[in-house]
């Protein structure tokens, strides 16, 4: 479904990603783990096309080379909204709900590109089913939600766009361990409903517990990849990258 070949990203001279190659098959749950500054967020931004538009008009734009293919189509040159239209939905880091809107409006914004009202309504019900707390908070300004609720809102908003491939950036950021697990559980549920998921995480333990296949990103390179068992087999990988 998603195929990245030799993706290299520079920020104003500094290399963020170095010849990253990655593959996600349809219906897979792939995790990417790595420490701070290893290029995880950059990777997702490059896929969703937001990367090239972080600072519009700035002279020092990030430069990108390599290829990103989604369902056999190159998307590395596409605009962010076109990529979203294709069904690659980015759930950004630090949640970023629209603070000045109610929860319901936030979810409605997620369905911005869709026209079919009955389907949107069905998806809204589905999101409410996954996160019952959002239904309670529907009329509340999203800036007054707690961190966990905001994370659920961000995922819910991404779901409202009817994703084929869902890119989730650090859902566990700043959440209590119990909440982390709850959010991960819902992400797994979303995956079981047929959405392909590419999860980027710093928390190795919960990623290992839920993802089918895991890439380890370090200093902008893919250090290694494999299933949980494969990774746990190698002592070096375990000690250096996973810290287990």
């Amino acid at each position, binding site marked *: 479904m998603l195929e990245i070949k030799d993706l290299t990203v520079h920020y104003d001279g500094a290399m963020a990603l170095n010849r990253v190659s990655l593959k996600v098959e349809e219906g897979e749950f792939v995790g990417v783990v790595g420490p701070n500054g290893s290029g995880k967020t950059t990777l997702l931004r490059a896929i*969703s096309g937001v990367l090239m538009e972080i600072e519009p008009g700035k002279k020092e734009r990030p430069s990108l080379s390599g290829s990103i293919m989604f369902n056999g189509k190159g998307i590395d040159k596409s605009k962010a909204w076109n990529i979203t239209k294709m069904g690659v939905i980015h759930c950004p880091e630090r949640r970023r709900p629209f603070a000045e809107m109610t929860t319901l409006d936030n979810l409605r*914004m997620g369905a911005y590109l869709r026209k079919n009202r009955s389907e949107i309504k069905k998806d809204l019900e589905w999101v409410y089913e996954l996160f019952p707390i959002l239904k309670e908070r529907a009329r509340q300004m999203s800036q007054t939600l707690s961190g966990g609720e905001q994370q659920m809102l961000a995922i819910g908003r991404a779901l409202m766009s009817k994703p084929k491939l869902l890119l989730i950036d650090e859902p566990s950021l700043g959440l209590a361990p119990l909440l982390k697990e709850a959010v991960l559980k819902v992400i797994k549920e979303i995956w079981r409903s047929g959405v392909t998921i590419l999860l980027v995480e710093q928390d190795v333990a919960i990623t290992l517990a839920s993802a089918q296949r895991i890439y380890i990103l370090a200093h902008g390179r893919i250090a290694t990849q494999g299933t949980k068992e494969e990774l746990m087999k190698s002592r070096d990988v375990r000690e250096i990258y996973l810290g287990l």
Partner: protein
Amino acid sequence: MVTTYIRRAYSSFVAHVFDIPARLLAFLLFLTLLFIPFAIQNTYYLRILILANVLAIFAVSWDFLVGRTGQISLGHAIFFGIGGYITALLSSSKFFGLPIFLTIPIAILAACIIALALGIPSLRVKGPYLALVTMSFPLILAALLKWYPLNHIFKGEFGIRGLPALVPRLDWMTIGQQRVGEYYVTLILLFAASVILYKIANSKIGLVFVSILDDELASKACGINVTKYKLMGFMISGLFGALAGCIQTHLLRFANPPMFALTLSFLPVIVTFLGGLGTIYGPIVGAYIYYILDSYVLRDWLPRFLKETVGVTLPPEFDFAKLLIFTLIVLILVIKLPRGIAKFTTDKLGDLEEARDLDERGPRIWKTYKKKEKTTSTGSEPTASS
């Protein structure tokens, strides 16, 4: 048939206006504005209100751009001036001599296209830089209009004069009646402009604007074409800014370079902060406060008051002090009442509404509540869902 229609209109009025204190207040203010010409016979005072209407349209368009789409423009005079000059050129008997009901729409559309052309380069910068870039546009155009080789078209500093009036004075009309006509035309246009902008701001497009204002990256992740919407905001705002310029041109019957002056760029800022940013109704209140302060209190009442009680005649330099006074007022407002006068009032009224019990609300809701109580006859306390 007719009675049911009237009843439905009445009940929707009660539910949407009468029950909500802020809207009731707005409705009463609107009624006041509607009947003011019957109370004021003085043509000078009526003139002040007419100009306040024009400024209100202009300020509402600025408020829409800055308060709703978050693009700070300090050069809004460009739309005002462009609208004014285009309709002046087209309607002037020396050039084309077209009737004004044709030239005003043409001028507005042209300003819209120019807004698009100016928007594309200015969207490459953000925040204070955008404010500075937009500020330069009207100054450049003003210089161009005063440029000597173009004097036979634009008549330089003198401007294009002798234009058809907004409300032509027919044989049987007195000046006062003409003023009343102008007042109603501007009031209707103000009402139309603010209702349209309010509707846009509260539609799906308005929601997109808020999302871009909140978080551009997240908006892009939702699949929103941010550039398109920013330009759309620019164009909508430019459209109504140009409308204000057109109206003023035909009210005063001339267009001259000061229409592009910095003062005109800053006036909507002052007025909007007086009323409340991002509210649409705020600038209208602000425009009236501004004109009443500027043209009545400071120009008329204060010199008379000082002359009669203290015996001091104000020097003509007092005109410059007015700007200082307004700066002071805005400064105090920004510190003490950052939401603006109108927004502050409606917020207070909104608190009042929530504090009231469900029982005490207006007729319709009260009745339905009572009916429910009768049918269920549980008599349970209404629980507020938060």
